[in-house]
C-alpha cells in the first residue's frame, strides 16, 4: 500500500532531507512519528473506505444511492441540514453581533454557553431535546396546544437537533470578524449621509458575508454527519425521519457492508465538497477584501 511506503525509512530520510536546514533538532523523529500516526489512525482507514467504494464502481454506488430508502435518508439529511444551517446563519449573526457590540447583564454567560453544543455529548443533547419537545415536554406540550405543532418524532425534531449542534459554528466564525470591523468604516458611511440601516445593509453585511457563508458551510457539514443528537428526537421512520448516518448503522447491523460503504462515501464526498467550498470562499474573500 502506498500509505505504508510513505512512512518507510527511505522516505523518512528523504523527508529529513526535504526540510530546510535548521539549527533545531528533532525534525526526523517528530515528522516521522506524526506522519506514521496520521497514516495509521486516519489516512489508511479512510482510504480503505474509498477503496471499498471504488470496488462497487460508479454504477453500483449510484444504484445504492437511488434505492428509495437510501435516497430518502440522504435527502432528509441534506435538506434539513441546509435548513438548520440557514436558520443558524440568521440567528447566529444576530447573536454574534449582540455578543460583540452590546453589553448587558449575563453577556459573558451567554457567550460561554454558545459553545455548549461543542462540549455536550451528543447523546445527552439528543435525549434532552427529545424530552423537551415530546408531546408532554416543556416546549412540545405548548407547541402542540397552541399551534398543533408536533416536533418530536417528526422531521421537525431533526431540524431542531441540527439547529442545536450547528449554532456555535456560525457564531464563532462571525464573531471575530465583527470584532475586527473598523468603526471608521461605519463613521465614513454616516458622514456620507447613509442612515444606520443603509450602513448595515451596504457596508457591514457585505463585509461579513464570507464569514457567514463559512459558518453556514461548517454548520451544514456538521449537521449532515450528525447522529447522536438526532436519533432520539427523530422517530427514525424510514422514508420520513430517517437520517443517512442512521441508515449506515442499519445497513451494518444487516451486514450490508456495500450499502454502508456507499452511503458513507457519498457523505464523505459531500463533506469534502463543503470543505472545498469553504476554502474557495475564504480565498475569494482574501483576494477581494485583502483579509481572511
Amino acid at each position, binding site marked *: 500500500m502506498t500509505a505504508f511506503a510513505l512512512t518507510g525509512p527511505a522516505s523518512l530520510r528523504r523527508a529529513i532531507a526535504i*526540510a530546510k536546514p*535548521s*539549527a*533545531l*533538532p*528533532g*525534525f526526523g523523529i*517528530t*515528522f516521522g512519528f*506524526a506522519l506514521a*500516526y*496520521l497514516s495509521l*489512525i*486516519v489516512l489508511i482507514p*479512510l482510504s*480503505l*473506505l474509498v477503496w*471499498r467504494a471504488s470496488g462497487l464502481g460508479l454504477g453500483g454506488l449510484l444504484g445504492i444511492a437511488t434505492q428509495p430508502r437510501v435516497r430518502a435518508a440522504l435527502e432528509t439529511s441534506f435538506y434539513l441540514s441546509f435548513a438548520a444551517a440557514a436558520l443558524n446563519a440568521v*440567528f447566529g449573526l*444576530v447573536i454574534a453581533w*449582540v455578543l460583540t457590540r*452590546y453589553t448587558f447583564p*449575563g453577556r459573558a454567560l*451567554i*457567550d*460561554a*454557553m*454558545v459553545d*455548549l453544543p461543542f*462540549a*455536550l*455529548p*451528543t*447523546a*445527552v443533547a439528543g*435525549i434532552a*431535546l427529545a*424530552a*423537551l419537545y415530546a408531546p408532554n*415536554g*416543556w416546549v412540545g406540550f405548548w407547541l402542540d396546544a397552541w399551534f398543533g405543532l408536533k416536533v418530536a418524532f417528526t422531521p421537525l425534531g431533526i431540524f431542531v437537533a441540527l439547529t*442545536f449542534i450547528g*449554532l456555535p459554528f456560525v457564531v*464563532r466564525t462571525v464573531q471575530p470578524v465583527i470584532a475586527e470591523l473598523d468603526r471608521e468604516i461605519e463613521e465614513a458611511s454616516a458622514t456620507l449621509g447613509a442612515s*444606520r440601516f443603509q450602513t448595515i445593509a451596504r457596508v457591514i453585511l457585505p463585509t461579513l458575508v464570507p464569514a457567514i457563508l463559512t459558518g453556514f458551510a461548517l454548520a451544514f457539514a456538521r449537521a*449532515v*454527519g*450528525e*447522529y447522536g443528537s438526532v436519533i432520539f428526537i427523530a422517530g427514525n421512520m424510514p422514508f420520513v425521519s430517517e437520517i443517512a*448516518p*442512521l441508515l*449506515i*448503522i442499519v445497513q*451494518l447491523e444487516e451486514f450490508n457492508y456495500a450499502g*454502508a*460503504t456507499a452511503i*458513507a462515501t457519498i*457523505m*464523505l464526498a459531500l*463533506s469534502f465538497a463543503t470543505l472545498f467550498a469553504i476554502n474557495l470562499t475564504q480565498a475569494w474573500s482574501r483576494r477581494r477584501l485583502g483579509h481572511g
Partner: protein
Amino acid sequence: MAEARHAFQGHGWRPVAAERPAIRRVLTVVAVGFVALFILLPLAAVFAEALRKGVPAFLEAFTDEATLAAVQLTLLVAAIAVPANLVFGLAAAWAIAKFEFPGKSLLITLIDLPFSVSPVVSGLVFVLLFGSHGLFGEWLQANDVKIIFAVPGIVLATIFVTFPFIARELIPLMQEQGTSEEEAALTLGASGLRTFLTVTLPNVKWALLYGVLLCNARAMGEFGAVAVVSGHIRGLTNTMPLHVEILYNEYNFVGAFAVASLLAGLALVTLLAKSLLEWRYGDELAGAHRH
C-alpha cells in the same frame, strides 16, 4: 458665564456607529431568547429530568453496576486517547511549526480531516478494517483477537474523532512564536530535549491545556463513532454516552438522565475552564478559536 450651555450628551446623542436603543433591545432579546431556547433549556432539561423523581432516585442510578462499569470504561478510553493525541499533537506541531518543508499545508489539512467526517463514518472505517467481514477480519478471528465490539475498537474510534483537537491548538500558536527562542537556548548550550522542555513547552502550556480539555470532553462524550464499533455489551463495551442510550431505550429515564447529568456536568466544567483560560490567558492561546 452668560452664554447658553448646550449640554446634550445625556439624551438625544448616540454614537454614530451604533443602533437605536430600541433596536438594540430587540436584537438582544432575540439573541438571548434563541440561546435560551436552543441551548439553556435543553441543558436545564437534563438536570430537571434527572431529578424528576427526587434525589434518592437520582443517586440510586449510580449504584447500578453497569452504570459504574460504563463510567470506568469512559475514563479508561479517555486516559488512552487523550495522551496518545497529546504526544501526536506535540510531535506534529514541532515538525510543522519549527521547520520548513514542502507539503506542509497539505499535512495541516489532513490533520483536520477527522473533523469533517461523520462520527458514524469514523466508526464504520474501523469496522471495514477489523470487523468480521473486514479486511483483517479473518486473520483476527483466527488469532482470537477482538477489536470490533471490544475495548480496542472503542479506543481507536475515539482517537480518530478526537485526533485534531490538541494539534490544531498548538500548530498556529507555535508557528506564531517562531524559532528564535529555541535557537537562543541552543546557542546557550542547552540540548534539544532540554530546549523543548524549558523553552517551547512553557510557551504553549495554556494552549496545550486548552486542547487537552476539548479533546477530553469529546473523548468522554463521543457517541456516534463508538456506537458503531461497540456492540453495546452491557458492563463490557458500554461507555457513558452509550449507556445513556440503553437506559433511555429501556424507558429508565431517571437513570438515563442521571448519567447524562454527569456528562453535562463535565461539559459545564469544560466550558468554565475554557472561558477562564480565554479570559486569563487569551493572548497566550492561538489567535482565533474556531472549532
